[in-house]
């Protein structure tokens, strides 16, 4: 047996159904994950700095803890929409065991539609809070409080849009096709790897 035989390869992925939408989603996802990843990196650096400050002969910065805490808020809500598209939110998956594909599809569409409505509700809640915040500023950094809620607002708008698009996608193409489609899937763990939650 020849050792130079080519390795069996997986069939090439099907071309995206809507290339423009595909590209747009990839860019938006990259931005969302990028912002959330940056927030994580800032938390990491600030907490390291805070740990180091105690053992170094320098004055401590009071704003590091405050900024790190807001970064956790931004990280959480910026990635919320991406998790919807990736089916990455923790959910009770017992309906997936139902044999009828139509029933499973209908339940998925309904669940995504509910998520979209809740996303709209919380986007409105964010907007309400931005309006209520007025001229308030944060104690250490003096950052306008309304700025803190801008990224969560965008995160919930993204959640609503992504859930709506995913609901339509599942309704038209079914659960299996939609979740295997690269149009809306996010390759966070690299192509071909299991998504672990």
């Amino acid at each position, binding site marked *: 047996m020849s050792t130079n035989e080519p390795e069996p390869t997986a069939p090439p992925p099907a071309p995206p159904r809507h290339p423009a939408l595909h590209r747009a989603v990839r860019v938006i996802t990259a931005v969302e994950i990028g912002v959330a990843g940056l927030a994580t990196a800032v*938390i990491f650096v600030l907490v390291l700095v805070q740990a180091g400050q105690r053992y170094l002969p320098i004055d401590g910065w009071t704003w590091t803890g405050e900024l790190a805490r807001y970064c*956790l808020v931004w990280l*959480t809500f910026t*990635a919320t929409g991406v*998790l919807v598209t990736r089916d990455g939110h923790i959910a009770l998956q017992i309906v997936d065991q139902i044999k009828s594909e139509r029933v499973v599809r209908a339940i998925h569409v309904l669940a995504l539609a509910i998520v979209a409505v*809740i996303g709209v509700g919380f986007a409105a809640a964010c907007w309400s809070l931005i309006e209520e915040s007025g001229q308030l500023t944060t104690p250490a950094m003096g950052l306008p409080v309304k700025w803190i809620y801008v990224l969560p607002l965008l995160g919930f708008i993204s959640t609503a849009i992504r859930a709506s698009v995913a609901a339509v996608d599942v309704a038209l193409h079914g659960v299996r096709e939609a979740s295997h489609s690269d149009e809306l899937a996010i390759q966070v763990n690299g192509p071909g790897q299991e998504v672990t*939650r």
Partner: protein
Amino acid sequence: MTVGLLLLAIALLLVLRVPVAFAFLGPGLAYLMFTGQSLGLAMRLITNSTASFPLLAVPLFVLLGATANHAGIADRLFDFALALFGKVRGGLGYVSVGVSLGFSWMSGSAVADAAALSKVEIPAMLRNGYSRRFGIGVVGASALIAPVMPPSIPAVIYAGLAAVSTGALFAASVIPALLMAVGLCIVVFIQVRRQPDIVHTGFSWSRLAETGKRVVGPALAPVIILGGILGGYFTPTEAAAVGAFYILVLGFFYRTLHVRDLPKIFAETVMTTAAIMLIVSSASLLGYVLARERIPQQLSELVLGFTDNGTVFLLLVAVLMLILGTVVDPTAVLVLVVPILMPIGLRLDVDPIVLGVLMILSLMIGLLTPPVGTVLYVLSSAVKVPVGEVFKGSLPFIVPLAAICLGIIFFPGMVTWLPNQLGL
């Protein structure tokens, strides 16, 4: 009545596969609207619960685990454990427990452990004549050590909610986590006697020394993390950052990590953290609603009318957590029930640290049981076997874990001894 409708709506949404966080957020927001409160209050509640300094440890411990995963630390631990236990009958079973125990010092998530280790350990067991059911069972049950052994993400969340020392909770979890490993090894010992086809690998001192050298670096991580916390050098949040930094440096030193891996590591950290933190924040909104409806007080009166014995209370808590852990995510359960159970426990003189360790361990058993059992789904996906088969394999390993829960209830000293010795 209002709360009944609210809980019914949540149950319905959960069954309809609406994500746990949104199943809490939707009815919570609806409650605020129907009671004439500001929509902004909902947003303020969920952001305030997220912007907490102790909870900053969550992304940092997730980052630590993800970095250790990418740096190939599990492979090094596996090689060392194999060199150590390879000659023993059923050695790969002990290797699985040992690797999970070693990796648990760097990872606080059972799901991450199961995902990382199942791909290495289960194929190795199948190649060496172990039954598939046994392999899945031992890997799944061993993964549960991670969220109990410090650094534990559920412990960070519990400590934040219950306002107890994270360091004390970490110290209190060490003995139960070690007992989990011992209990699982006993089940391995019993089970491998029924498998005559398993193959043993050899033993050599040179191999042990060679693989031992490769785990010296990773072995220092728990010293830095736990030693830093318990020695008072760092807060748990700072220790998480220092631990992640150490593993990053170690990965670059071993050349198993490269700068190009960093975006992937941070992206994984973002996804896992956001899923956890959204549940924490959404459950805080629901907690506000329950508190406004005086549910904790009513439940407290109900429980205290039933018993005034701390041990009976702990038994009830363990049963409740086992049941809730099978259907709801552990993080959500913690955020919802800790504010309710803590005051009752305090009135019954139950140590909050004992309550915390018991709740975490009982909830983690739910990760191995249907219908939610996240570890079951991860293993089912990794090994391509039905969830039911994974559960059957895991069932014998649940027995020692349940026994440890009983041990904590009747001998709480096994939890409080170490923190007391350390003056925490």
